[in-house]
């Protein structure tokens, strides 16, 4: 063990970072693949169906079969499409979804880049995801793809503001932009987690996260019953697969961020024996799984929002709610005896 550690220390920094990046991206990709299976299974049971059960025991090899199928399919580029942008678009969608994981602290010490402004970094990167959608929609040279891109651009810009304000509330409560310090500010048990004092912001963040990832009930950018498949209607094979990966990686990312900012990250719900025996990593992934399950549950439960209602919800409900609650946090923190509770 010690020689292994010594060998690790001998490696150049760039190799060490590369290994760490692979150690995050690899399991993430597997998680994304099995998240798609989980979605089909969960929604299947919610619809009183069985879901995929043919490939492998209980359908467990289904994601691998899907991946192989998509890899060997021909990637068709429409005749009048803008070739370069058409190929770049899926990459533009996936890269931010993966890059944001660099600053996610899995436990107190397990973090790739412990950056001071990591909260801002995450917000900046998630806001870049829209380019993949917009560029894909435009480069496809198709009406439906273009409609999807326009819807998505307007929707993401609207919800990003609400999301950003929700994060302002978190940073006011934690007094830091560093995700690790934000989690440390919530240590001490469930009553210290930010979802209690910041409950409205928690809801706004979660719902904006669903809208930001273009998931049902806010999936008007895809809208298969209205505009076929929206922005990725012209994509096939790997191009389509990469969009798919980006969507699910984004959902997992939003779940992870919700856990970090509102649900105490790697902290156990109470600092008493049965809970503290379980390692922090388990708590982090457990909470992440619960939020990720919510995404699937929403999809099986809610009908799609009408477009103007989505816009109204974002601009006229969420932004005022966050603004009011930021004021509440500020006043509570400095002028009331509940200040310690608000961070």
């Amino acid at each position: 063990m010690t020689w292994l550690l010594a060998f690790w220390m001998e490696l150049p920094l760039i190799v060490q970072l590369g290994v760490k990046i692979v150690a995050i991206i690899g399991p993430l990709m597997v998680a994304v693949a099995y998240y798609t299976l989980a979605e089909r299974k969960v929604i299947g049971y919610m619809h009183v169906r069985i879901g995929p059960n043919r490939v492998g025991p209980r359908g467990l090899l289904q994601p691998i079969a899907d991946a192989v199928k998509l890899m060997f399919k021909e990637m068709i580029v429409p005749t009048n499409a803008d070739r370069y942008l058409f190929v770049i678009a899926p990459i533009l969608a996936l890269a931010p979804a993966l890059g944001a994981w660099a600053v996610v602290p899995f436990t107190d010490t397990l973090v790739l880049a412990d950056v001071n402004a990591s909260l801002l970094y995450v917000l900046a990167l998630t806001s870049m995801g829209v380019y993949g959608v917009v560029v894909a929609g435009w480069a496809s040279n198709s009406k439906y793809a273009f409609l999807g891109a326009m819807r998505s651009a307007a929707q993401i810009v609207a919800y990003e503001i609400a999301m950003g304000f929700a994060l302002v509330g978190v940073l006011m409560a934690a007094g830091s932009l560093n995700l690790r310090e934000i989690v440390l500010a919530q240590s001490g048990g469930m009553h210290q987690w930010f979802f209690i004092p910041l409950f409205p912001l928690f809801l706004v963040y979660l719902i904006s996260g669903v809208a930001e990832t273009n998931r049902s009930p806010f999936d008007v950018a895809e809208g298969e019953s209205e505009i076929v498949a929206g922005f990725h209607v012209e994509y096939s094979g790997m191009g389509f697969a990469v969009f798919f990966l980006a969507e699910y990686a984004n959902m997992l990312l939003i779940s992870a961020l919700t856990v970090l900012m509102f649900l105490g990250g790697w902290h156990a719900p109470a600092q008493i024996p049965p809970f503290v025996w379980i390692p922090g990593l388990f708590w982090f992934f457990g909470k992440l799984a619960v939020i990720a399950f919510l995404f699937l549950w929403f999809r099986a439960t809610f009908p799609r929002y009408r477009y103007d209602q989505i816009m109204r919800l974002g601009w006229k409900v969420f932004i005022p709610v966050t603004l009011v609650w930021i004021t509440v946090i500020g006043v509570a923190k400095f002028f009331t005896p509940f200040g310690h509770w608000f961070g």
Partner: protein
Amino acid sequence: MRVRSRVRVRQTLGTAKTVTFLQLIFYIFATVLVGASLMVITVRNPVRAALFLVLAFFSAACLWLTLEAEFLAITLVLVYVGAVMVLFLFVIMMLDVNIAQMRAGFARYLPLGLIVAVVMAGELTLVMLSGEFGLQQAPRPAGHAADYSNTRALGEVIYTDYVFAFELAALILLVAIIAAISLTLRRRPQTRNQSPKDQVRVRKQDRLRVVRMPTSPQDKP
């Protein structure tokens, strides 16, 4: 990461002849930045031009990162790349740009464009050669310790030394927001707007009438 880059900053200060890692990064991003900026003004397709502008912003943000200004760098990406350019693209994509028509005006506007370009280049050269720039006037700031937070430093300066300028800027932005919103409040009498208030208040019995009808001759109601 940050600690290591700081070590390299010290190395560059020591007038090293070899190209350090930080310098290499600087030259890569500077090349991309200049190249992307050139493409913005030369490329024909406006959507591609806007996307090159995004690349230019992004490279500039990376350059700021090498100056240890992580807050400003990320804010540049967040505001300009994440919001402003998305709206830009939104508008540009809606335009039906006729490239032939655009090229027709090129020769006519060329003299005026050249004059403006020459004047701007001359002004820039005058400023650059005035002797007010360079390492003698503004020596390179020393690298900071690893626990130094650019975000905190910026916040402290903004809310103490420059608080009035900051508040003034905020006020101007507020006025702009109110002005922009008031423009959308224009109501034309002939357009029919939805009333979300009424839509939310509506109940099933207001809209729905269940009618019993015979579907076959023997099915009498």
